[in-house]
């Protein structure tokens, strides 16, 4: 079976996003706000304090928080070494209708108090507004007049640590963290995060088809094990398989005949 190039965002698009972010990061420019992933609310202009970056590369504080929770890894030149929540389209995860309620119902979020569910529900824009407002307050506690997104990373991280420890703030960061990881590892709108952790690319994202089987060649071609010579492929270093096809060494002295019957069930 050959791979179809029908990812929700194509690999080329993903790549250009990554490269684009790398360039943006290196130039310190904010990404365009005209695209669908832009936050829905306009933020008041912030007055940068002494130690903050001259210009933010984040669209808003929530955007920055997502990068703290599941960061894009950049090298010194701003090249993306490994993608993070933002490349994986965390905004798309946050836009899932009733995200808080269904994420709780699916065990992705712990059971939140009813009041928190109410506070954090009401759509992505509402959640974002609440979270941006909270982050503004938290940031101001550390640096008056500074926006969360403009704070040094160490301070941002400390704010997040404190928020996880605070009963009132914890639900907010839990929801944001869940959205980041759902986007990254849940194949919501792309498979960028999954590939970053070592999974093969989806064969067809639109059809919801991840991988259609093993063994395959390293380049992704499905191998018919009944007709092709796996040993030869392995010898060439071109086999991506899930079995070593050999038995593990026996365990001296461990006699299973007292617990296991001949068909492989416990006695």
């Amino acid at each position, binding site marked *: 079976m050959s791979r179809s190039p029908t990812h929700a965002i194509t690999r080329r698009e993903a790549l250009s996003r990554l490269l684009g972010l790398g360039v943006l990061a290196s130039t310190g420019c904010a990404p365009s706000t005209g695209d669908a992933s832009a936050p829905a609310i306009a933020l008041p202009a912030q007055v940068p304090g002494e130690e903050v970056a001259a210009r933010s590369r984040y669209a808003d504080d929530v955007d920055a928080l997502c990068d703290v*929770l599941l960061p894009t890894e950049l090298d010194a030149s701003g090249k993306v070494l490994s993608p993070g929540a933002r490349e994986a389209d965390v905004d798309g995860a946050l836009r899932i*209708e009733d995200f808080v309620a269904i994420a709780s119902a699916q065990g992705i979020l712990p059971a939140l108090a009813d009041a928190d569910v109410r506070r954090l529900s009401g759509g992505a824009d509402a959640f974002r507004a609440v979270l941006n407002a909270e982050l503004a307050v938290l940031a101001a506690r550390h640096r008056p007049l500074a926006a969360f997104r403009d704070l040094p990373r160490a301070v941002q991280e400390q704010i997040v640590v404190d928020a996880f420890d605070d009963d009132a703030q914890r639900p907010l960061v839990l929801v944001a963290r869940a959205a980041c990881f759902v986007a990254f590892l849940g194949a919501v709108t792309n498979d960028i995060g999954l590939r970053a*952790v070592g999974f093969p690319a989806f064969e067809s994202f639109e059809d919801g*088809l991840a991988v259609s089987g093993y063994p395959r060649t390293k380049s992704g071609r499905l191998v018919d094990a009944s007709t092709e010579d796996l040993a030869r492929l392995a010898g060439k270093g071109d086999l991506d398989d899930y*079995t070593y096809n050999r038995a593990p060494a026996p*365990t001296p002295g461990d006699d299973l005949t007292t617990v296991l019957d001949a068909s492989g*069930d416990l*006695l």
Partner: protein
Amino acid sequence: MAGGFHDIVIVGSGFGGAVMAARLGAHAKTLAKKPSVLVLEKGWDGSGKLDPRSDGGPVNAQGNRFRHTLSPAYTSKVAQVFTDPRGTYQRGAPSMNVIAGKGFGGGSIVYDGVSLRAPAEAFEQVRDGRRLWPSFYSRAALSPYYAMVEQRLGVHRLAWTDASAPHHQLATKRDFVFAEGCRRIGATAVPLKLADAGDANEGWWNQGQRFEGRQDLTKNYLRDARDSGVVMWSGCEVEHVAPTKDGYVISGTDRRGGAAVPFEIECRVLVVAGGAVGSSGLLLRSVDRFGDARALDPAQMLGKQVSANGDYGVSGVVGRDYEHDVEGHKGKPMSSFCPSFFGQHKFVLIPFYAAPLYLALGGASTLLRPREPAASGRGSTGIARDATGLEERAFGLAYKKRLMTFGPRMLTMGCLAIDACEGEISLARSGTGCDVSWRETSATTEARWKAAVDAMRRIYEALGGEMYLDAYRKDGTVSTAHPLGGCRMTERGDAAGVVDTCGESLRNRNLFVVDAAVIPSALGVNPSLTIAAVAESIADRLIRGAGTEALADRLA
């Protein structure tokens, strides 16, 4: 309000409901009056083949509606999680999480296909001087029924290596690594028995198996039921049952087509098969509708003594120097197990694929290091601190990097133990849902888990790696995909249960519970084969009228 009458109504379509639908459906066809059989399932028809009115998405190129995404908007169509709302959120409070399938096929649409017969001693457990299982049941008594299920599901044992075995019937690299770890601590791993649909699997979806590779019940028992003329409605949640003069009335909501339409259906014979939590919840909600003479729960046992089947999952990594990659996401999600500890400690160990999303969020096991690696027991240790005295964080670059070991070095495993049924199911404060809880772990269960956790930690260490902190040691959270009990079977007249050995309510003729809810003890192995075998045995006795009134007479 929609309504109507069906002779037999089955609520739920998992291992209990599907077997009953297939067997009673086939039998009904042979009866002169051709009684009608209806299955009501609250989830959708992911197969796209059972309910023409199901309003799922379009059938895809694979011939079904399943997709490989963990977006909660999608997973809420195929699975449900029950939790203790007083638990996880308030850190440190005891809690429990139960995951179950939802939709035609019940748990089979998300399961791993492991199909083991329960060990003989699971049936022989005694508590307070009483055998937990009714005397009718034993491993030997269930053997013919196990064989029937194995035959229908195409269960076979995998091999480590065999030139003549199809590639997909071989265990995985993960198993090889696990087996080597077991060997290094003096134990042995062997290949598992599995139901699979002949596919070479594809370790990705949340349980790592492509849907058309999974031997789910829509391909066998439910298909048989449909072919016998059993009518199946998806999207129909039963909320209450109540007795009538000569049967039952079932009320609920039909959500097909988007709108929530109430329905009320009458029947002569009612089979409740909503799973351990689903069935217990439905009966708990309905208790008030049954008077004293027909009390549903005369012994106040509904929802009580629920087993987690001793489930305890951990994650960790093998060492960088270990010669093999694990690549846990490839191959079947479960394909070997280690029975070496069962004789002494009553647990087996199983390596499995766990989706990195769930590991990252830490519901059952975390990617954090434990402060005291050798600690075991509920809430026994916290998160490790780094050199500067700060706790490791479940976010940030270091955490992401740990996650990125997922492909090559991550190894996830768990134990299934004979626990002492410490769980409880209760009605949620609002809505039609249920809560679950696990207040205290008995000394017996704790000792078994301690031995299991110790063995698993030693396996990681023997492979040069380490075991991460799990939610039981951190927060006291018990997580299970194998809830059992809630409507326990008992000898008729015995006060310690809810239904008799045929699954029939003690005081309500023709009201049956046939699913995980009636299983009165932990099994020590994955339970689906036993649930289905018990259902086969109940269907057989009902059809033959052996030890109970025959179905034909009940419907006359």
